[in-house]
């Protein structure tokens, strides 16, 4: 018995630039999000993973309503919330909150931490002062900081401490969907474990839904139910976490998994790099966006853009990939090892 998805994206496109700047210089258009479709179920943690600059933050901002989508539909609880003005869109999506990728820039340098947290609650209409103090205290200890931090200014905190304040600030609002943009980068392993444990706990306690943007694959594997792999504004592989980590089919996903640095020292020289330079986001290759870096690419790949399709017989499993040659990929990784046939070594 499953109800509909809590959030649903259909062919969402977000574009930067285009038109002319005030100097009359033509601005090349960047389709940072280029036709993204997926559903998020209530209570799940969906990871968004992909190359730096592939459009993860842009997608997050679009979902939040901070950036207006060029086209496509966004539904929250089945209700259409796209095609609105930015103000209306943000209002309609108030239950979605965002933890900023940059902890320092998200805090007001002139306010103490205590002031910032208090103000956040006041803006969100928590008028009882004692209630605000209680929630702040509770959340602060949940992220592993004591109340002496309330008197400090952002520059008096280390990077990791700022990040924990950023988390506390969103979580005290009790949102339904939380978009976490790189929530653990800059945390030491001990604090990271505590924060990840906290995410798990809060998720169960409040039935939260997470969209988890992260570059740390061991964290993703540990925390998320499903993974969406993005490349150049598109989702190239999507599915439950374990099958994707065990038997990735898209060449990009396989390159990504094999580039994750292991804890066994001294393997750098043997790790294969992606070939070629990253393509320009304002002149995306025709057909498959990854073809210029993929060893499996042929004429079909430059002629047709591959659709996101189911890659196993069992459609209920939900493992999908956008690749004309995913069968080849599946074949080469059938022995369970991360065969690198799909990826050109440099």
């Amino acid at each position, binding site marked *: 018995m499953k109800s509909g998805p809590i959030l649903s994206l259909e062919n969402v496109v977000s574009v930067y630039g285009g038109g002319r700047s005030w100097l009359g210089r033509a601005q090349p258009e960047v389709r940072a999000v280029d036709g993204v479709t997926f559903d998020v179920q209530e209570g799940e943690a969906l990871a968004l993973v992909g190359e730096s600059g592939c459009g993860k933050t842009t997608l997050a901002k679009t979902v939040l309503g901070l950036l207006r989508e060029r086209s496509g539909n966004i539904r929250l609880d089945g209700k259409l919330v796209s095609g609105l003005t930015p103000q209306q869109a943000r209002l309609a999506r108030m239950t979605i909150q965002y933890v900023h990728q940059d902890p320092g820039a998200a805090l007001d340098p002139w306010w103490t931490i205590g002031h910032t947290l208090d103000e956040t609650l006041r803006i969100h209409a928590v008028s009882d002062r004692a209630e605000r103090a209680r929630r702040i205290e509770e959340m602060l200890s949940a992220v592993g900081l004591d109340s002496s931090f309330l008197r400090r200014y952002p520059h008096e905190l280390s990077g990791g401490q700022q990040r924990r304040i950023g988390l506390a600030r969103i979580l005290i609002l009790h949102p339904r969907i939380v978009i976490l943009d*790189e929530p653990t980068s*800059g945390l*030491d392993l001990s604090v*990271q474990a505590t924060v990840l444990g906290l995410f798990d706990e809060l998720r169960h306690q409040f039935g939260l839904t997470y969209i988890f943007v992260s570059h740390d694959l061991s964290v993703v594997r*540990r925390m998320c139910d499903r993974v969406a792999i993005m490349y150049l504004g598109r989702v190239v592989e999507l599915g439950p976490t374990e099958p994707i980590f065990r038997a990735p089919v898209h060449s990009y996903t396989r390159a990504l998994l094999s580039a994750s640095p*292991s804890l066994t*020292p001294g393997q750098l020289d043997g*790790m294969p*790099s992606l070939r070629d330079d990253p393509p320009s986001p304002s002149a995306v290759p025709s057909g498959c966006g990854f073809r210029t870096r993929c060893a499996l690419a042929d004429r079909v790949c430059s002629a047709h853009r591959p659709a996101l399709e189911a890659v196993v017989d069992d459609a209920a499993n939900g493992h999908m990939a956008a690749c004309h040659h995913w069968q080849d990929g599946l074949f080469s990784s059938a022995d369970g090892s991360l065969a690198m046939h799909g990826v050109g070594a440099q």
Partner: protein
Amino acid sequence: MTASAPALLDVRNLSVAVDTDEGVASILDGVNFQLAPGSIHGVVGESGCGKSTLIKAILGLLPARSRATEGSVALNGKPLFGLEQASTAHSVRGRQIGFIPQDPFLALNPVFRVGDQLLEAMWWHGAGSDDTNREKPRAQRRRAYSERIVELLRAVQLPDPELALARYPHQFSGGQRQRLLIAAALACAPQVVLADEPTTALDVTTQLQILKLLRQLTRERGVSMMFVTHDFGVVAQLCDTVTVMYAGQTVETGPVATVMEQPSHPYTRMLLACHPERSVELKGIPGAVPSPLRPPAGCRFNPRCPEVIPDCESGRPKLLPASAGRHVACFRCHAEAVP
């Protein structure tokens, strides 16, 4: 470790304190380390233990209420400390030490084009000792430096490097900004690079290219690097040696393979056990990091350490040589090492 090669950067007994409303807080307490030419030294430790402060102290960039209270820093045998006021300090540091700051969002000025910001440092410091462009006419010099930057931007995998120069910082993604800063730090061809979590915003394929690029610089040009990170995978693949810090002090230091595969300080062991691939339940090390205003007596880790012996609460453990080329500051490890 190659103890014989003279260190390019030599940090001795460095202590830093900050004046706060509640008193003086000790942020760094007697930190030592040496960078040999061509080597990469990793620095890990809990968030807030003073890693960024260490870099800022070396660069003479400590914030207003902080100051170095003790110790010395020497570059190529020449002391850097005490040079603070002299204008030479700035140029020595700018020319010979490249710095990759921790926060890619705050480090770039939002109102200037990226190209102008990257060119500025080269304009002042040139592009290394073999830079022949300094005598050239303005326009030629500008062109040469722009070309060098474009080349570096390509090396750090930035798409459209030529167009990037004319864009503003907000038009780049987090990881792209981080790569702009890496390119900026390398532009003046420094001998020493101090990198403060330089790859946190990068996906692993891009990170891999950057790690390879940095490794290549150390091999081919003898550049030395200090690399602050929380990612033990990166330490394992990139670094030759590593220092583990806790509450402003070094607790363990040595060759990467030794420290990572047979960690001996309880903090190192407990930290590694928190790795998502290793920890059974997601729990951090019990207890909290001590306030730098009131560090505990004895070993600073003793309130959280499951293996305390009476010594731990009285004296401060010295960083002493231990097995397999490492140094450890732990009474229990010292006691066990002596038969």
